[in-house]
């Protein structure tokens, strides 16, 4: 009896193995399917996603000033640029830059005075301070990245220009972000 109890190989090895393999494979599928809800619950929830777009009245932002609004938990810079700031940015369109971009590509046509950017340094996520740095754009206090008046990276460790959010003008001085 002892021999039979511990016997591990009998006749028809293939059919037996198939059942064990099928059971274990099914178990693996089950585990994989169970893991998904536990990962998916970490994605943004319904109420978070619902707040993903905001409408902002920008009529009170005077030239040379910027408005900072909170969008998706991050600051968005709405900068009303002076003609001099626009000219400075356009002049440098073809300068040697880490992340080349023209000034026109960073604003909406006919709305060149409005520069709307996500106010998060592309280096490690700090919020650059307004109107400081060598180019009069922004200067990031954390590690010294310098952005110009089009939000392009000019000096320092940041790899990319300040990001543009999805936005559109819903009126002359009304903008919908997201």
């Amino acid at each position, binding site marked *: *009896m002892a021999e039979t*109890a511990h016997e591990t190989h009998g006749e028809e090895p293939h059919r037996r193995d198939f059942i064990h393999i099928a059971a274990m494979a099914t*178990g693996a599928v089950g585990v994989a399917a169970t893991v998904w809800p536990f990962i998916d*619950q*970490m994605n943004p929830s319904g109420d978070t996603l619902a707040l993903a777009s905001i409408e902002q009245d920008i009529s009170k932002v005077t030239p040379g000033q910027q408005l900072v609004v909170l969008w998706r938990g991050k600051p968005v810079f709405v900068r009303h640029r002076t003609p001099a700031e626009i000219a400075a940015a356009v002049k440098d369109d073809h300068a040697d830059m880490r992340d080349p971009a023209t000034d026109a590509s960073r604003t909406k046509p006919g709305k060149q005075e409005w520069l709307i950017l996500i106010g998060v340094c592309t280096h490690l996520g700090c919020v650059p301070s307004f109107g400081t740095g060598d180019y009069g754009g922004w200067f990031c206090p954390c590690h010294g990245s310098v952005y110009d008046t089009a939000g392009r990276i000019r000096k320092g460790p940041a790899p990319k220009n300040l990001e543009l959010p999805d936005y559109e003008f819903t009126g002359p001085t009304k903008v919908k972000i997201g």
Partner: protein
Amino acid sequence: MSGHSTYEPKTSFERWLDVRLPILRMAHDTAIDFPTPKNLNYWWTFGGILAVCLVIQIVTGLVLAMHYVANAGLAFNSVEHIMRDVNHGWMIRYIHANGASMFFLAVYVHIARGLYYGSYKAPREILWLLGCVIYLLMMATAFMGYVLPWGQMSYYGAVVITNLFSAFDRLIPGVGTAITTWLWGGFAVDNATLNRFFSLHYLLPFMIAGVVGLHIWALHVPGNNNPTGVDVKSKEDTVPFHPYYTVKDAFAILVFLLLFSWFVFFAPEALGHADNQVPANPLVTPIHIVPEWYFLPFYAILRAVPDKLIGVLLMFSAIAMLFLLPWLDTSKVRSMRYRPMARWFFLIFIAATLGLGWCGGKLPDDVVIAVGQDAVSGEPTGFTVVMLSRVLATYYFAYFLLVLPLLGLFEKTLAVPDTISTPVLPKGGASMPTGATASPEKKG
């Protein structure tokens, strides 16, 4: 039985690890090659089922804690946020909420199995006591977890249970009040109470996991009991845990999960109370407050006595009985399979406990057997729920304090087989191993 290890490291890494941290050896000896009686029936699969329950509760609980807010003003809404807006949040919460019930269902079967087959007897007393500690921790965890959604039942459950301790004022004046105030962190159950309950509800499951580790350790020293209650005498009484019991446990776990899933997906509120969907309101108590089903027998014992202190003491004694059990049962025979009288008393005990659970869910004055009619109100009078609770509670205690101690001295038991293998061997016992006729007292 926990003799020498059969682990043989196969790769050079395993050999390297084995002399530094023999964790693979431990896993091999406890879960792979552990010699397990070959006659374990399905009642023995509930240990594995309970392990799965604990893992499910901890994993889903961790996830819920990512979204839950332990604040009296926000808790109810944060639970609804989980139910409505968190991706798959409804599923995870319903698994956790019903998981508590499933956990208790499994633990009651597990305890009943231990009672029937005498698994608490020498040399497994520590194993049994650790199990009782786990059960206590489970009750504390479940109670505090039920408070967290901060509905009406949560709130008044917390109010009633914390007020139990005020009964101790009768023993030492001031002590009961001090304990309740200290539990509340205020003048009543409030935000401070909710916060500390959340903290402890998060902590206790890990303590349960720790005691489960000790419970398994204490199991592997004497090895499993088995339906005959006869000690393992030779290698031929056992099979290696893997694959024999891994696959049997897996099958049982899956059947259990079918039941579990039915509740989660098709009747998720069946074991809950509608009143707990109403946010906690300290100004209004729901008309009929009852604890969760798994506490109902104890609730019935509490209400069976008109005296507050005695009721509370009796309720705690009902649990204390389990702790004393290894020294209350005097029978030399472990398994009730060979104790025909004890088997009847056991069945009545199970029925009494279920009956107490039924009583716990009823109003104390509900009439079970109508005898007459009240002259004024016309309501039927007779044998009420509270009277039935008294009869059943008396039996509950008598089972532990009279039946088990006395029965072992007087009962006539059936012949106990010499070895586990004997009952299943063909007539004549063809391959009876030599030296397997040691006396049953050898282990004691």
